[in-house]
C-alpha cells in the first residue's frame, strides 16, 4: 500500500513536471498555438482595438476562434464606417510551391471575406488579392516567422 502510494506520488510528481516543462516550452516559442500565430508582433490596427490581420495554420485556410473574434471586430468597425471599402490580402509562408501558395492565399483571403459577409458587410465593399508567398512580413526562415506570414490582412482602400 505505502509503496503503491509512494509510486503514485512519484507518478504525480513526474506528471506535474511534464506538464510544467510542456508549458515552459510552449512559452518559449511563445506565440504559436498549434502552428497558428497568436502574438501581437507585426499586427497593425484599423482603429483602436481592431487588429488588421488573422493567422492560419500550415496549408489551412480555416479561421480559429481568435481569428473569428478579430474579424467580428473588423465587421463592427466596417458597419460604423459605411463608406469605407477594404481589400483583404491573402498570404502564405515560404515553405510551399509558388503556384499552390497563390491559390492558398486567395482561399485564406476569401475565408476572411466570407466571415465578414456573414456579419453583414456587403461583398461589394471587400475585394481580395492573393500574394502567395511573395510578400512575407517577417523575412526570417523560422517557424515563428512563417506563422506570422500565413495571414490575411484587411487593408483600407479609401
Amino acid at each position, binding site marked *: 500500500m505505502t509503496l503503491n502510494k509512494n509510486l503514485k506520488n512519484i507518478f504525480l510528481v513526474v506528471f506535474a513536471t511534464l506538464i510544467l516543462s510542456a508549458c515552459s516550452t510552449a512559452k518559449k516559442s511563445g506565440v504559436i498555438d498549434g502552428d497558428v500565430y497568436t502574438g501581437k508582433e507585426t499586427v497593425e490596427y484599423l482603429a483602436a482595438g481592431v487588429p488588421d490581420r488573422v493567422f492560419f495554420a500550415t496549408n489551412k485556410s480555416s479561421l480559429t476562434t481568435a481569428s473569428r473574434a478579430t474579424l467580428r471586430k473588423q465587421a463592427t468597425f466596417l458597419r460604423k464606417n459605411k463608406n469605407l471599402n477594404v481589400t483583404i490580402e491573402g498570404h502564405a509562408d515560404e*515553405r510551399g510551391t509558388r*503556384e499552390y501558395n*497563390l*491559390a492558398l492565399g486567395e482561399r485564406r483571403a476569401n475565408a476572411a471575406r466570407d466571415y465578414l459577409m456573414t456579419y453583414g458587410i456587403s461583398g461589394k465593399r471587400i475585394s481580395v488579392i492573393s500574394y502567395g508567398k511573395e510578400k512575407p512580413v517577417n523575412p526570417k526562415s523560422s517557424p515563428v516567422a512563417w506563422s506570422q506570414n500565413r495571414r490575411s490582412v484587411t487593408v483600407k482602400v479609401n
Partner: protein
Amino acid sequence: MKKIIFIFFINIIFLNKSYGLIEVDITRGNLDPLPIAVSPLHVDIKSDEYEGLKVRDLGHEISKIIESNFRNTGLFNPLKKEAFVQKPDIAHLKPRFEDWRLIKAQALVTGKLLVKDNKLKIEFRLWDLTAAQEMTALAFTTTPSNWRRVAHIISDKIYERLTGEEGYFDTRIIYVAESGPKSQRVKKLAIMDQDGSNTKYLTLGNELVLTPRFNPTNQMVTYMSYFRNMPRVYLLDIETGTQEIVGNFPGMTFAPRFSPDGKKIIMSFAKDGNSDIYTMDLDSRVVERITEHSSIDTSPSFSPDGKFIAFNSDRSGLQQIYVMRSDGSNVKRITFGKGIYGTPVWSPRGDLIAFTKMRKGRFYIGVMRTDGTGERLLTENYYQEAPSWSPNGRVLVFYRETKAGEKGEGFSAKLWSIDITGYNERRLSTKTDASDPSWSSLLSK
C-alpha cells in the same frame, strides 16, 4: 573509359551505317566522361575586321564555348589546350590521329572560319580518334554577330552525333531576376542564353512578375503579372515586346503554360477561394473550363501529345499530383508516396513527369512515370521547386532558395540544373538572384 570502349566494340559488332564510331551513353550519368579535344577554330588570315568583334580571337572563343557546353553536360571531359599537338589549320585538314590519342583524346573537334563581306563562313569536323576517321562535318554562313549561336549550334551537332539525342545548347532560359531585401523583392522577367550569356531584362521591375513559360513552338512567353495590382496571366512576344492580358477573367489567373502545339494557354482561375483549371485558345479566344472542384486545382501541364493534363490538387486534403484527359474527364491521383507533391511538368519525351516533393521540412526535385510509378528523387535541399525540362528531356532546371536569418540576411535564390540520371547537379550562372526558370525549345529547329 572502359564502358565507352565496350560500347564501341558492340557497335562494331552490330555494324550500323555509322561504322560503329564512338558513342556516349547518356542513360547512366557521368561515370566516364568522354575525353574530347576541341581545337581552336582556325581563323583565315584573309578575314576582314568586323565592328565590335575581335575576329582574330573568334576561333578560340568559339572553341571555348563548345568546351564549356560539353563540360556542363557532365558527359564529356574537354582536354586542356596546352597539351594539343597540332596547329588548328593542319589538324582540320587531317589530324595525326596517333598524336591526339597520345593525350588520351577519343574525339576531336576542328574547324576554320572566315569573315568576309560582313559574313561569317564557318565549318567544323568531328573526328573519331580511335577509329581514325571523320564522323561528321558541316559548313554554314551567317552574320558575324551570330558567332555565339554558331558555337551552340556546332555543340548541338556534335552532341547529337555522339549521343544519338537531340542537343539543347542553342536554347534560351527565361526566368525571374530577383533583387532587393527579402520582404520587398523586386522581380523582373529576364532571358539569357542557356550558358548564362546575353542576359536581357524584359520588364522594369515596377510590378511583381512570376512564372514565365516558353511556347514550345515559338518565342512567345506566358507569365503572371501584378500589373495595376491585378494578378493576371499575360502573353508576351519577346521579339516585339508586345504583351496582352490572357482572357477576361474577373479574378486572379495564374500558373500558365502553353499546350504542346502552342495554340492554347492552360492556367488556373481563382474565384471565391476556389481555383480551377481553364484553357484559352489563342486564335479563337474561346475559354474552356477543365476542372470543377471545390479544391485548389493548379499547376497544369499538358502531355506532349496534348491528350492528357497533369495537375496539382488538394482535393484529397493535401497537395498531390493528378492526371486527367485533356477534356477534364478521367481524373486519377498518381502520387501516393509519403509527403506532399506539387509542380508536375510533363517531359517533352512524354515518358516522365518531373515534380517537387515536400517531406519533413525538406524539398526534393524528382521524376516519375506518368502513372506515378518509378518515383526517383534527384536532389534534396532546404528549399527548391519549379522544375523545367531541357527540350531533349535529359536535364531539369529549377530554382533553389537558402535559409534566411533574423533580417532576411543569407537569403538567396539561384537556378540549378540536374540530369535526370541524378548526376551532374550544377548552378547556372545568372547576373542576379533568379527563380522560376523555363527552358526554350531549340532556336534553330
